[in-house]
Structures are given as C-alpha cells and as structure tokens.
C-alpha cells in the first residue's frame, strides 16, 4: 500500500487531529463559562430571537446523530450486507454527535448549573421533557447496539438491538421536530409536517456526515472505497436530499396557501435577509448542486461525492438558520389586521447577529463530536471491512 501513511506519520496526524479537536472543545467550554458568568447579554440573542446560533449547531448535531444511524439500521434491520460492515462506525458517529449537540444545548441554558433540575423534574406535556428521556435513552441503546456488534459473543443480539435503536431514533427525531411542531405562537412553526420532515432531514444529513467521515478514513488508510459501495451510498444520499427538498416545498406551499401565513412566507422567501440564504444556500448549494454532482458522471468519483456530502452539510446549517432564526425574526401576529408598535419592538422584524462566544460554543459541540470520533476510530476497530469480491459472487450487491 504505497500511498498509505506510514504508521509514524499516522500516529503524528492522529495526535494533531485530537489536539485540534480538544482545543476547539476547550474554547467552546470556555465560551460557555463566559456566557454563564456574564449572562446572555454577551450573545446576539434577545427577547424576540430567543434561540440563536447555538441551537442551529445543537439541532444539526442531534438530527444528524439520529440520521447517521440509518447506515446501521439498513444493515441490521433490513439486512443489507454492505451497510452491516459500516454499522459500528455509524453507531460511533451517532453517539459522538449526540454528545456534541446535547452539550451545546445544555451549556446554552440560562441556568446550565441546574441541569440536575431538568433531570429530576419531568413535565409530561413538554416536548423538551420527552427529549430529556429520549436523548439519554439514545446514548444507552446505541452503546448497547455497538457492544452487540463488536463483541463476538453478543453478535446474536445485534439484530434486536439494532431494531430497538431504529425505533428509538425515529421517536427521537419525531421529538426534535415536534419541539417546533407543537408551537402555536409563531407562524413559522406549528405544523405536524415538521416531525416527518425532521426524520427525512436526519437521513440526508446523517448520511452526508457518514460519507465525509468514511472518505477521510479511507484516505487515511490509503484505501479506495469499492465503487459499488460508493454507488449505493451516493444514490441513497441523493434520494434523501431530494426528499428533504420535497418536504421543504410542501411546507412552504401549504403555509403560503393559508392567508394568515402568507405575509410570513413572503417575508421569508422573498423579502428578508433570509431569502437569499434560502434560495442560494439551502436550495441551490445545499440541495440542487449536490444532486447534480451525485447523479451526473462526476458521481462516479469519491471526491465529488464527498464534495456533494459537504455541500449537503453546509445546506443543512443554512436550512436550520433560516428555519430557526428566520422563524423568530418575523413579528408575532398578536393583533391581526392592525399595525402595531411598542417599546418591546412589537410589529418589527428583528435582526440577529451571532456573537463570537455563542459561535464558539456551537463550534465546541462540533469539537466534542470530532474528538470523540477521532479517538474512537483510532483505538477501536470501526473501519468498514468489505469483501466485495465475495459479495458480488453471492449477489448481495445489486444496483
């Protein structure tokens, strides 16, 4: 393997990557401490835009953490062999991203020191309350699932464990989508469509993250992903991106049809700082360009599929920014039919500029996930082991 990194170089790169991840994590934790000490006055969030960039990072990580497990589910639950060999890696990515996302959302709390209160006081009508059960449960189930896959004596239990993880993550992402679906106050949210939409978003974003990490691991080891595996995964990614775009279209068309929502839809799609982000960032760069890359001749090459996956991840961040910040920037319609103004900025479009500490907190979540993945793939055997020759003979891979 002439192109592979020598073991000495490899060890060096591992320490450099782990150090970068650790540094980003430390800076994120430092930012959280600063926000905790000074208060949210040092963020761009306010009483109108109450959730900001930390929530964009956190929700991306949590949604992608659920979706990345799709690779394992296709293998364990639906019996696809090429996915089966990738299931442990998919579990590791899931746990790592979930940890990063949860850390960000918890450290952004006004009273992060009261996390024990959140763990001991449960309100059954709160979607956040459900998530207090769903998120830690996901950790436990995925950890057991990985164990059943990596410990030979437990292999017999990997299918039921995988099935449990599959059901749990569908519930988990339903819970994440429902955070917004159950809000009656703001025009942007309050649609049952958000629950299934978040599930399909999770499929696309999770698979995109998997493709990128897998490409890095194959590069690291000087290996080439078998073309048939690449073919299967990129087609699936394209399908999920298309489905996400479909749900996005349905959500906005439904809203635009209702007279009470038209003003908001016009604002978001055509008349605000979020319009260009939506059309260029989310739709063009985050959805259409990746689909072109995937389904044109460029899609035969790993590099371009990886680029497409990176664009899907970029589009995901833009989508969440437009959805979360844009949804709050539009004023509440408290008095329909009236123009309103007040000292509390009623009737005014709000503008949000993320401050450095909150951006660093969000990046800290990525740092946590990155560090956990780097260490995980180094110390344990997460590299997918394909026997493509054998699989082709057995007819397990079909296009």
């Amino acid at each position, binding site marked *: 393997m002439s192109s592979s990194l020598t073991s000495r170089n490899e060890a060096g790169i591992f320490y450099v990557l782990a150090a970068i991840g650790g540094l980003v994590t430390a800076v994120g934790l430092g930012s959280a401490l600063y926000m905790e000490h000074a208060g949210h006055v040092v963020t761009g969030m306010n*009483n109108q835009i*109450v959730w900001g960039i930390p929530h964009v990072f956190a929700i991306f990580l949590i949604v992608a953490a659920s979706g990345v497990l799709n690779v394992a589910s296709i293998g364990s639950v639906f019996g696809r062999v090429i996915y089966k060999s990738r299931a442990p890696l998919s579990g590791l990515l899931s746990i790592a991203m979930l940890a990063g996302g949860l850390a960000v959302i918890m450290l952004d709390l006004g*009273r992060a020191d009261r996390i024990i209160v959140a763990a001991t006081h449960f309100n059954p009508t709160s979607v956040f309350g459900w998530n207090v059960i769903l998120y830690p449960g996901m950790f436990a189930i995925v950890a057991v699932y990985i164990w059943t896959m990596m410990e030979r004596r437990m292999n017999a239990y990997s299918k039921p464990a995988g099935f449990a993880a599959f059901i749990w993550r569908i519930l988990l992402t339903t819970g994440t989508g429902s955070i917004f679906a159950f809000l009656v106050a703001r025009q942007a949210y309050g649609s049952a469509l958000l629950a299934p939409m978040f599930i399909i978003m999770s499929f696309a974003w999770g698979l995109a993250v998997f493709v990128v990490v897998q490409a890095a691991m194959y590069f690291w080891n000087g290996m080439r992903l078998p073309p048939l595996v690449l073919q299967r995964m990129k087609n699936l990614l394209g399908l999920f991106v298309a489905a996400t775009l479909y749900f996005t279209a349905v959500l906005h068309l439904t809203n635009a049809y209702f007279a009470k929502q038209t003003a908001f839809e016009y604002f978001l799609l055509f008349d605000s700082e979020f319009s260009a982000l939506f059309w260029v960032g989310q739709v063009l760069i985050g959805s259409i360009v990746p689909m072109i890359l995937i389904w044109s001749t460029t899609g035969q090459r790993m590099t371009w599929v990886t680029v497409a996956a990176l664009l899907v991840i970029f589009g995901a961040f833009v989508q969440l920014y437009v959805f979360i910040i844009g949804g*709050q920037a539009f004023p509440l319609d408290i008095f329909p039919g009236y123009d*309103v103004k007040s000292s*509390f900025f009623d009737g005014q479009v709000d503008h949000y500029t993320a401050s450095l500490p909150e951006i660093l907190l969000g990046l800290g979540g990525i740092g946590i996930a990155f560090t956990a993945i780097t260490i995980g793939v180094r110390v344990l055997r997460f590299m997918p082991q394909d026997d493509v020759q054998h699989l082709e003979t057995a007819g397990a891979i079909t296009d």
Partner: protein
Amino acid sequence: MSEQNNPRRAFIAAAGAGVAGLGFTAIAPGLHLMAVAQAADATTNSPAARKAGEAASSAVRWGLLVDATKCAPGCTKCVEACHTENGITEKMPDARQNSQWIRKIELVDRRNGRKTELPMMCQHCANPPCVDVCPTGASMKRADGIVLVDRHSCIGCRYCMMACPYKARSFVHAPLTEQNPEVPRGKGCVESCTLCAHRVDKGQNPACVEKCPEGAMIFGDLMDPNSAISKRIASVPTTQVRSDLRLDVGVRYQGI
C-alpha cells in the same frame, strides 16, 4: 492558673459568642422578613388577603379587564408602576434584551387608521402554552389562575418564550442588583407579569391597576358574578386577544 485567666476557657467562650453571633446574623434577616410580613398583613384588612402558608384557592380566578377606550395615548404610568413594584431597573446596551413585563402597544387599524393604545402583559391563560412546554414544570399556573415562573426550577431554556403567543415573557440577560425582596428575579431565568401575586395575596390590586390615572383597568375575581370585573364583562362586549387559540385568557380588553 485561676479559672478566670484560663486562656483555653477564654477562647471557648469567645468562640461560643462568635458562633452565637454568626447564628443570629444568619437568622436575623429571616426574623426581619417575618416581622415585615406580619406588619404587612396587619395593614391590609381585606377579606381577600391570603395568609402565609395558605394555598391559593381554585374557587377564585383572578383576571384583569382593560378598557382600551380609556387608555390615554402616550401614558406609561402602568409600565412605570410595574417596573417600580417589581424592581425592573436594568438597562442593557441592546434594548431588546431588557425585561418588559408590561408594555404599551399602539394599534392602528389598517382599514380605517383608527388608533388604539393598550397595555399588554401575560394574559394568564387557563390553558397556557408556556406551562405545557416547560420541561421542568417551572412555568406553572396557580390554583387561582395566576401564571408564574418558579425561579428555583427554571433552567433558562426559553421554550416558554417560543410558545407564548403574546410575547409576554422576558429572559434575564445579565446579573441583577437592587431587587425588590418580595419579587425575586435572577439572571438566566425567564420571567413575566405575576399579576403582582405578592400584592394580590395581601388583598391589594396589582400595581398597574392601582396607578392607572384613567381607571382603565379593573382587577378581580372572574368566577364571582358579583365582582366589578364580572359585572362589567357581563354588560359590555369584551375581547380575548388571539381568541382563535382558545387559551381562555384571564386578561380581557374592552374597546378593541
């Protein structure tokens, strides 16, 4: 060595006095607050006053009626009274980060340009979305209908602010000083109009109602057909803001 000048005994005596002094210092504020509370109880002979330790009653539902036709343009007496009563004094560099428990809203009817002004605050819903979404139960509704935030269990997630259709809640963005001891507030928690629960429990009206120079606000028990508020609601058309949401609010408006 005589007993008088035994240094060990002297030390123990001094330490004992010190501990007793510290103990008194620790409980003195509590004793003072109890005396203040008892004095306050003695000054209000209203039958509606609630004794300390007595639970709020579901036999009453406190509510407000705002007569927007009387609300004077540009007048912010209710807002000032609220801020004074509840110790809302902070001024953030970004005004959007300031707490506002009550605000004056100016409405202009798009069809005919008719102007109306009214105070807006927590509407004390019977079915409050903020209570539904709160993960810890810190957002809660008292038996007498007053919607409050328990400052001890609020974790500052701001989900209630996302859920409130009235933009009634504020998040405390920075450390606070000069608080009113009867109205504890704190950095990192969400807060909103308490309907001056601390005054109501003493049989007094909320500060905004008391200080309104136009007499545009009536406070009272919505479940008592003989209360002034119930009689007015029975005799004139009143509005529940965002009545389409079926939240059954405790604050009603007349003249909008």
